């Protein structure tokens, strides 16, 4: 098969990637575009490179927008009488009975209270890493530790819309960290990412696995190091 490239192609090959990424400017851009217009080989190269370039933004992880996002957006769009949202935080809260919200609030309050006590209380030693059941049977809490050193706390809330709250305090993570849970069958599930600032941060998210099935929670730093582990068994 004949090579469809022309002797000019080599001169423009260097620029095709930047053209595909939309970052080529000025004369180089104009000249490369003019060549692509008359060269089927480079046009095909450009198309493939552009597909790869466009795909890079797809790698960003999904994240739940803040509470009320949808309401504010639909107001701006003039969309009225929206049908109930089937998935996501806002609908989960709307669909959650008041007693469940109260329990969730209590969980957060309890977790924060435990966290504060553990940070500032007189008995500052490492807390128990085993599961601590509190009053509601579907609520569980455990300390996060890093080689035995307490670095935060995990609280899960069951019910029909499971939640998880993670708090970090004096952990070895800064920037983006990810929370994972390991279920009884040994499978690891990513719950989501959040930002820790100098080892501190708190975060809540919907839990897509049954809390009673969770055996372990992990917080992993952006370089892949596990900076906190909690045993939930």
């Amino acid at each position, binding site marked *: 098969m004949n090579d469809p490239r022309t002797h000019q192609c080599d001169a423009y090959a260097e620029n095709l990637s930047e053209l595909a990424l*939309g970052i080529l400017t000025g004369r180089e851009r104009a000249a490369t575009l003019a060549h692509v217009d008359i060269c089927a080989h480079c046009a095909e190269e450009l198309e493939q490179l552009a597909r790869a*370039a466009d*795909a*890079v933004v797809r790698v960003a992880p*999904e994240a739940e927008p803040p509470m009320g996002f949808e309401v504010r957006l639909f107001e701006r769009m003039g969309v009225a009488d929206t049908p109930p*949202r089937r998935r996501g935080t806002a609908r989960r809260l709307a669909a959650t009975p008041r007693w469940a919200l109260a329990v969730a609030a209590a969980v957060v309050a309890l977790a924060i209270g435990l966290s504060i006590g553990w940070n500032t209380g007189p008995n500052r030693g490492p807390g128990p890493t085993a599961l601590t059941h509190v009053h509601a049977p579907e609520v569980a809490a455990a300390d996060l530790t890093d080689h035995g050193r307490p670095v935060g706390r995990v609280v899960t809330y069951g019910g029909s819309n499971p939640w998880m709250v993670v708090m970090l305090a004096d952990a070895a993570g800064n920037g983006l960290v990810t929370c994972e849970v390991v279920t009884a069958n040994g499978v690891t599930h990513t719950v989501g990412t959040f930002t820790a600032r100098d080892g501190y941060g708190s975060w809540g998210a919907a839990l897509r696995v049954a809390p009673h099935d969770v055996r372990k929670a992990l917080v992993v730093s952006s370089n892949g190091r596990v900076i906190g582990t909690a045993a939930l068994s």
Partner: protein
Amino acid sequence: MIDSGSSDEALLAGMAMGDQAAAVAFVRRYQRRVFGLAYSMTSDSSVAEEVAQEALIRVWRHAPVFDHRRGSVTSWVLTITRNLTIDALRMRRATPTDPDDFAASAMISLEHNPEDAVARGDISDVVRTALGDLPAEQRRAVVLAAVYGRTALEISEEEAIPLGTAKTRIRTGLIRLRAAVERLRDAEEEHR
């Protein structure tokens, strides 16, 4: 009838015709991706919300002019989001998320069996895996160019490297990502 199971193209067409149910379904399908991209680029929830709202408003307004021959709905929506985020960062003179952190958060969200990404036909995981396989300096250059819209000259200045080195990193990295994306397309062709 348009509902939450309709294709992206059908929802956009419905939005273009003023169908509120289509708009609601589209927003609910895309809001996590749009907000996730803006947040990954800014590490700032309030900026990300502002950008995500504006991006979805623009998609809604411009739905009538979407041309599916020029690319997928997902690429269009995420490109709008990316461009608005870049503008928001520039206007605020805010520091964007470090490209290494952006890439790390992407790879963290990779499923635990990345080798199956091609079999699953998941382009996001295919690119995540390919991005993770790049040498760090190429990965950084590709993220700076493809996500943050930095030119080769800007990358050379920011990274304190010669312009030729910046161009080579961008080109080599993108060519390797292209190979991964084309393998996925070939696999999809075989299944047809």
